[in-house]
């Protein structure tokens, strides 16, 4: 049973003074799964990831990570986990090869030279191996960081917003790489803000104000939100959005290009609200709620409860 999960933790809590950054979060991630970790800025994603790899001591919580006690065995876990920091954290005054060589030495890897060469080849960094890391563009820095995280053949990768500031082509290559690695049995926990990336994950965990709000596959998360969405096309959509926003039952009215998405958690109330506007000049049709609609819906919810 326990072997099924790469991450299986309960009640993980971290406080900084009076502020609770992570509040009793339970999370299970199966081996070989790519789990997307979503949440607004400052919601506790980075803190949670740092607790998993032993960079922060948890105030409460228990469980296992790769079969080791997440609190007591953080030294053992460190050897089997690859952690990619949010901000590029390799040595900018070392070359690509020197950075990889340093990491390989830190993990006491046998056949170090071969391992470094293979790693350079696999990520297409061989031609640039003598370039200083500080001179690389965002996409290449991210490749170097991924190569360095993989050098000790970890079983679990914790990636904290790995594609921030990376162009779309590099991002697509990056995700292709991740799915290949997941196919080989690696487990991923990836913090991200991008909806298209979230949709590429097997499973999503959504965290806000330190609390886990929802967990499941993309379809499950959308379904659990019980969100209804209508798309409308027509003249003066901004004015329409303003009017609709004020009505009960309408939670969001968000422009998507030349279309407006109207959504709310109560289908009947929403349909009642839009009924007066279903005139000939507007073209209405119901669409499946997108992940972004759900994301914003979940972000609004804790704000409402906290303001009460």
């Amino acid at each position, binding site marked *: 049973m326990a072997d099924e999960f790469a991450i299986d933790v309960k009640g993980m809590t971290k406080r900084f003074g009076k502020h609770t950054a992570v509040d009793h979060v339970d999370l299970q991630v199966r081996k070989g799964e790519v789990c997307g970790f979503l949440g607004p800025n400052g919601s506790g994603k980075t803190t949670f990831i740092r607790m998993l790899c032993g*960079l*922060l001591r948890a105030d409460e919580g228990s469980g296992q990570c790769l079969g080791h006690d997440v609190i007591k065995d953080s030294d053992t876990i460190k050897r089997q986990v690859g952690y990619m920091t949010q901000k590029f954290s390799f040595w900018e005054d070392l070359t690509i090869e020197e950075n990889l060589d340093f990491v390989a030495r830190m993990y006491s890897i046998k056949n170090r030279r071969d391992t470094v060469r293979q790693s350079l080849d696999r990520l297409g960094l061989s031609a640039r191996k003598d370039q200083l890391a500080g001179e690389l563009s965002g996409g290449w820095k991210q490749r170097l960081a991924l190569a360095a995280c993989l050098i000790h053949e970890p079983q679990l990768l914790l990636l904290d917003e790995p594609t921030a500031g990376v162009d779309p082509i590099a991002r697509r290559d990056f995700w292709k790489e991740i799915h290949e690695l997941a196919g080989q049995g690696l487990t991923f926990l990836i913090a991200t803000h991008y909806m298209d990336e979230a949709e590429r994950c097997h499973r999503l965990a959504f965290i806000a104000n330190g609390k886990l709000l929802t967990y499941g596959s993309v379809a499950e998360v959308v379904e659990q939100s019980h969100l209804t969405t209508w798309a409308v096309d027509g003249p003066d959509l901004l004015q329409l959005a303003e009017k609709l926003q004020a009505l009960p039952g309408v939670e969001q009215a968000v422009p998507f290009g030349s279309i407006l998405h109207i959504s709310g958690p109560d289908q009947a109330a929403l349909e009642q609200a839009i009924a007066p506007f279903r005139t000939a000049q507007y073209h209405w049709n119901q669409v499946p709620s997108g992940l972004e609609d759900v994301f914003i819906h979940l972000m609004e919810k804790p704000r409402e409860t906290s303001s009460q």
Partner: protein
Amino acid sequence: MKNPHGFSFARLWAIVVKEFIQMRRDRVTFAMMIGIPLIQLILFSYAINSDPRHLSAAIVVADHGPQGRAILSALRNSTYFQFVRQVPTEAEAQAALARGEVQFMISIPEHFTRDLLRGDRPTLLVEADATDPGATGGPLGALPSILNAALQNDAKGPLDYLASTDSPIDLRIHAKYNPEAITHYTIVPGLLGVVLTMTMVMITALAITRERESGTMENLLSMPTRPLEVMIGKILPYILVGYIQMGLILAASHFLFHVPMVGSLWLLMGVTLVFIAASLAVGVTFSTLAQNQRQAMQMTLFFFLPSILLSGFMFPFRGMPNWAQALGEILPLTHFLRLVRGILLKGNGIDDVLRQLWQIALFGVVVLTIAVFRYRRTLD
């Protein structure tokens, strides 16, 4: 009509206000702006004295006649000398001089009074530790007039011939270790300590703070490494750098300034290792306290300033008041200066060296203990 592209006092004021806000937020810089002038004011006005008085002397008194006593009390009353110990033989007094425990030794030989009264010009031996010519120049220059004045009182009536003779005493002054009072001999070996203090403390303080500032510390901490590995790994390369600096300064002092090297170079290398290690420990500790590289630099300056002023490098150590000497005794540079001068100029051996060296080692251990407690293996 106002020209919108001209000089605007509103914009100027905006920048002034912003500078003040930033100044107030940056506590360490603020402390520097207040602290550095205060430290300098106190040290320069109270602690530093270029005409030092009350210098420690060991006396050897083999004759207890009235003239000998008169001379001793005249020396004491001159306020140049303070007799801190009386020893039975000249050899013992000279050993104290070699160890740097006293600045002077004054010996009144046997039959001093008898020979004086006979007009046989008895010898009065004064030896000075001239490794710091700044401290000994004043008192030695004043000696003849102090002695003459002392004898004037007695040179009345039947003894008035004492006043008429040119000098009834054969005053022998030995400015030991640096008889020509060449300041290079003092400054250049001292510079070794000053350069090492500055660079060793600063380099390590920056090396670790830089890791934290650039975010690479998080990466380092996420790898399986122990704090001791990180610290020693950071320190070792700079020990080598310290030795290169030492080699440069010693070569320069030998070939350019012809500073004598009486003692053992191996001993000096050993002593320097302890000093480098203590300085690096200070740097590591600063790096655990500083938030960024600029603060690390400022802390280094805070440490460097008293080191250079209170150690006896710039001004005679024994010329300072007791509280300043007590502060100076804590600083590793004070002991290192004595050691370098002791080994190079006096030829001090290992026994003499250990008396100072343990104090540098103790300082290093205390400081490193703080560093180990402050160093975090996590980002908490």
